[in-house]
């Protein structure tokens, strides 16, 4: 055993240096690369819960064109999807199905709560059949207010989600 404090310090410093170098030069670029891939390739699940779906449709139309951000419109199977856009009110009948859809999606996955109804129940807050906020059953990353949100607002929300992914750990 070496008990010399100077030597110990040297070993510690060197390992710190190497650790930092690896952190800075290997893991960070790698993390950036993976996150970069994820944020430009958000495929939404086709789960329409209520009336906000028409503004989602309008956002994938030519004027707003979500594909600019790498979102593929109307992608088929939820097994290949990354983001669950809750398009409006979630009713008591839809809620278990939506949770099921969320559980079947592969990790990593994100949830966008689109519209006032998905955030808190919105206009239908006192209805007997409406879930007051989708965050009671699935974790939500980005809330997009509006009733319904304009496509521009939806795009803003997607950019917020991209910013969130960009800063997230891998």
């Amino acid at each position, binding site marked *: 055993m070496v008990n010399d404090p100077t030597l110990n310090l040297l070993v510690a410093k060197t390992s710190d240096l190497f650790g930092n170098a690896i952190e800075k030069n290997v893991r960070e670029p790698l993390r950036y690369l993976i996150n970069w891939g994820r944020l430009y390739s958000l495929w939404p699940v086709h789960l329409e819960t209520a009336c906000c779906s028409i503004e989602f449709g309008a956002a994938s139309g030519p004027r707003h064109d979500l594909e600019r951000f*790498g979102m593929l419109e109307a992608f*088929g199977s939820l097994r290949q999807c990354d983001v669950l856009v809750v398009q409006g009110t979630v009713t008591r009948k839809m809620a278990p199905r939506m949770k099921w859809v969320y559980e*079947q999606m592969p990790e990593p996955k994100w949830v966008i709560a689109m519209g006032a109804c998905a955030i808190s129940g919105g206009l239908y807050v006192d209805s007997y059949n409406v879930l007051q906020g989708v965050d009671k059953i699935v974790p939500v990353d980005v809330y997009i207010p509006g009733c319904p949100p304009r496509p521009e607002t939806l795009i803003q929300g997607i950019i917020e989600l991209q910013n969130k992914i960009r800063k997230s750990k891998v």
Partner: protein
Amino acid sequence: MIETFEEFVKRILALLFWFILLSPLIIFPILFLLVPIFGIDVTTVNEILTASIDPIKALKLVEELGLGPSSTFFKVVAFPGFTFAALVATITILYERKLIAKTQLRVGPLYAGRFEGFLQPIADLFKLLGKELIVPEKADKAFFWAAPILSLALGASLLAVIPLSPTIYIARSDFSLLIPFAIIGFSPLVVLIAAWASSNKFAFIGGLRALHQLAAYEIPMLISILGVVVLTGSFDLMEIVEAQKNMWFIIPQFLGAIIFYITILSELERVPFDLPEAETEIVSGWLTEYTGMHFGLLQLGVYIKFYVLALLFTLLFLGGWNGPAFLPPVVWLLTKLFFVISLIIFPRAVLPRLRLDQLIRIGWAWLIALSFINLFIAVIESSLGVI
């Protein structure tokens, strides 16, 4: 924290700089230890040092290792083999998305990679690499894993005998036209394995549709290329291309080219024959249960098949690498190839999907009859000495 693309590029450049600076200190001593083990004919250490800054010498060294551009390994792995095919497949994916978007008055991918979203397929690839792989509980696990690998293997093995120019090819065979079609014959099997192993109803229906479709369209596909064989009297792609020096076969074999084009669309499950993946009917068809890189491999396999079939169309009907001499043959080939790829992509923008019974009726009733007529035309032309 790296947060922007520029920072990332800067960091990578800095890393490269330090690597080049430090490599003589760390890597070369190791190299000197390793050289005797490989038994390379290097007389002096100095040669390695010069090679590290002189590309011509480096190339020679690599060739001595058996990895040079003329070596089999390089041909299979890089050019004109797998890497090149995968690159073309990636470009095809991007090209398809941009072309379709422009037809639909949109811009398509725009922000991934600063310029016109040209890094979009790479982003998709990185995304798929980092995704969780889900194997359904009730799936047949062995086959579920096997299908993506089989799909890619099938695509890759198609590349073996197809030449890109008189000098660029992996292997030469007298039957280089038949071999790809023999391999393509396995693709229904791969689809069926993928569909059956998923143990999903939609996948199963998709698999059965694919089986019907591929079986119905393989026969007219084979018969339609027989016309070319009759005209040249050879199954060798090299000779077929050489025979088109004066006239491309699309002129005497116009009907055959059209039948071959239609069967390509069907074989690749493109619109209007994309029934096995018809989203609004059966979710994603036989791809329904595949996640992450499984899905990526299946798609890559399909797109490599896309490349091969477009290449075959170019070689058989568009004169392959023949063209005015001011450009190298392989450039001519690639130009024609991308024209054919556009042709295959474009129906997606203007046609709806067919129904299974209509598709099978077209296949069995029309295309087979037409392909036989085409064969007769070829026989007559050959007896008249058109070519």
